[in-house]
């Protein structure tokens, strides 16, 4: 873990993320009895977006999204270069705040409600993400991602509760059903395209790529639980993603009360149980 891995993330993550997105569409299509687009369709889409005219509803709305893009890459790079997990999470929050503010700034009813819901989603997932850091610190005595990865035993055995809380919020972070409240990749939404309604062309492409970075980064956090063996870690992480896609297609979107309440209650109970378990074991 060093600056090199961080740099590798910047280069490779959009490719991996785009591929994951392609797999998502393929799998979704199959589950719906369609053949689905080619695997590389997301890349074609983004390329086309870059060629389109950049239309906005408000003058400066794109700046927030560009900043979201930069901060997301920074967050992932910080994570993959082995930095402090808490700082990574704060940086993620900063990126998320800019994403939401972009939606506010666009000032259309749809982007506005999308932005509100995005903020709610952040409130829902933040405790679980922070608790992941808390749990990892309790076991490895370090917040440094590099130290956590180097921990010789499987963390999942020590932190099942925190993993459960994290799994619950994965769908929120990926903006997948049942928690695709702010915006949705497929046409699951009554709010047009939610927070991204007023974004087009190059900016929309950047948002899409930023989400690819996010995929890889968030799965990276999941990988930490299994990092004692790289191959097992990668396989489990991949299946985690597939599971989220299957749930996405099998579940209907819930109200925000269920999302926030569910994420918080699970984080609270599972977190408390896990902390108790760790303390009793010592």
């Amino acid at each position, binding site marked *: 873990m060093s600056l090199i891995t961080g740099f590798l993330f910047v280069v490779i993550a959009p490719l991996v993320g785009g591929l994951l997105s392609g797999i998502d569409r393929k799998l979704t299509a199959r589950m719906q009895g369609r053949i689905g687009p080619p695997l590389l369709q997301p890349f074609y889409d983004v390329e086309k977006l870059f060629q389109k005219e*950049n*239309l*906005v*509803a*408000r*003058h*400066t709305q*794109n*700046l927030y999204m560009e*900043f979201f893009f*930069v*901060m997301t890459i*920074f967050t992932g790079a*910080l994570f993959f270069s082995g*930095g*402090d997990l*808490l*700082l990574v999470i*704060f*940086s993620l*929050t*900063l990126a998320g*705040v800019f994403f*939401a*503010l972009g*939606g*506010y*700034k*666009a*000032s*259309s*009813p*749809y982007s*506005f409600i999308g*932005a*509100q819901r995005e*903020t*709610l989603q*952040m*409130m*829902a997932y*933040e*405790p679980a993400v*922070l*608790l992941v850091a*808390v749990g990892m*610190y*309790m076991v490895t005595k370090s*917040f440094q991602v590099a130290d956590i990865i180097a921990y010789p035993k499987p963390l999942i055995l020590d932190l099942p509760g925190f993993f459960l809380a994290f799994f619950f919020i994965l769908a929120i972070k990926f903006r997948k059903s049942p928690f695709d409240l702010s915006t949705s990749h497929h046409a699951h939404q009554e709010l*047009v395209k939610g927070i991204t*309604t*007023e974004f087009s062309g190059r900016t929309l492409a950047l948002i899409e790529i930023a989400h690819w970075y996010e995929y890889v980064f968030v799965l990276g956090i999941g990988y930490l639980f299994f990092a004692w063996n790289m191959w097992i870690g990668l396989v489990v992480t991949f299946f985690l993603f597939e599971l989220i896609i299957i749930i996405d297609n099998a579940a209907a979107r819930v109200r925000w*009360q269920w999302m926030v309440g569910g994420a*918080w209650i699970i*984080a*609270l109970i599972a*977190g*408390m149980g896990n*902390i108790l378990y760790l*303390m009793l074991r010592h």
Partner: protein
Amino acid sequence: MLFQLLSFLIIFPLCIAALAFINRKASAFAPLVYTGAGMLILASLMLLSIPLGGKTVMIPAHITWAEPVILISEIAISAFLLFLALKRKDIVVSSLVVASAGLLFWFYFGPGHAAHAENNLFLDPFSVIMGLIVGMIGSLIAVYAVGYMKDFCKHHREIPDRRPVFFGIIFLFLSAMFGVCFSNNLFWLFFFWEITTVCSFLLIGYKGDEPSVKNAFGALRWNMLGGLAFLVGIIYLYMSTGTVELDKALQLPKAVVLLPVVLISFAGMTKSAQLPFSSWLVGAMVAPTPVSALLHSSTMVKAGVYIVLKFAPVLEGTLAGFVVALIGILTFLMGSFICISQTDAKKVLAYSTIANLGLIILCAGVGTYEAVWAGILLIIFHAIAKGLLFLCVGVVEHTIGSRRIEDMSGLIMRMPRVSVMMQVGIAGMFLAPFGMLISKWAVLKALLDYNPFLALFLVFGSSATLFFWVKWIGKLLVIDRPYQKLEAKVSKDQMFALGTLTVLTILMCGFFSHVANTMIEPYVFMIYGKQMEMSAGNVTTMGIMLTMVALFPFSFLDSSRKVKITDAYLAGANTGERSHQFTSSLGGVKDMALKNYYLEDHFPEARLMGLGVGLAILLCVALAVIGGVGCL
């Protein structure tokens, strides 16, 4: 030199106050306030030039006239308060005043007759920090208040113009705050403590109408109760150990000083509006905004957390400390949740102050070196950002005639500079890489090494703060109809105070590791002999983040290029004002409206407050029992 500086900081604002009381001409006080504030800022900056070398400097300061003056002032204050309380037929306040005055006299002329302090004043790195906060932020608020109160008098013709008195009280307040920060003699400290109570009482009741007077008495009630606990604490300390000095008390074995420390912490918690006493600080919102800014950022509540943090080494590892920490985290949680449902900007700020003070009290209760480090950092950042936010809201209220967050739509168009400063203030309260977030990071670390269960609750409160701050910034950015620019109405002195605080917020973030290393670190090391580690890698990371955030405003410079503006999608035909109005499917032109979520059903103020107060009363009872058992 040092003695002169400290006595100047305490006595000079007193002189300004006296001048303001004597010369009540409206033309005279503005220059007086500017001069006084300027001198105070310079004098408090001079605190930095004192080579402490990571040690406490004790100053004997044996002034022969000090004791009689303090005694006479205390008689005068008690008589004054008793008169007001009796006039209002407030039994609770009257009996508290009588009890506390009686106790004091009994002590002075009875057992405490020979009480003697070797050193009356002191200076250590923590009191330097407090002195700077009081001197810089307090003075800036006074400067701002000159312009603000001018508008205030115009808006409120029904209230008699008593501005010289108002400013007199503010400077008296600052003087007392310096006294609190530099006193080593606990009876001096108590004297200044009571003056801050009286000043806040007078300032909250400044308007003189029924709600103001009612809330002023509400504040007085809790603070007098805290004051009484403080007094009992120091008298007990003297009777059982023979010392009246802060530094000596901190050196004594824990078992001996625990009861006095619990009592003083109780006083600190009333003053810093912890649950179950929080209602007085919310009620204090009736006062003119500079008063709120003063109470919430640099004075009053900071005196409360200062004294509890000062005694943190005693609380460390004790059951009493744990209960104090529980009260702190409970206050943080409830305060943060209640903020979500508040539409009034000042109430959001009030509850967020209560929440953040809870965090500091939590740190004090935990009492480890990491926690104290985090607590002091929180005091600094909170003072600056909260001062800035209150002053922004005050300006906005006078300009747009409302302080509801819903009415702040499009503020970025109407008052561009103020709204950007407000955004900096808000970012300073919760967003990386600004100060409060660094502090929260430190708190989390400290909690994990102490009791991970507390950390569990911290993360929920912290997420709630994220939600209400983001939706507030969002509201400032939203443009839901065409707006006129209104900013020209804001006076120069107000802008000066706002600008300086904004720059301070950003600078403190940039130089935070320097501040931590030169000011907080020596204090923590002096007491615990341990060093708080902040890895160089993390400092660099935060530097990069700050640079990126700082670059963000520059991206607006060439924002007009390459974009084509079209109508926003309104699910109807855009009509008239194209992005704001539409023809709906039922016909007729409609205005678009954008309203924030407040989730009143899920985060109801009254129920959460009731729950918090109930739990906190139980915790206070537990604290009393622990303190009582400890002294047996």
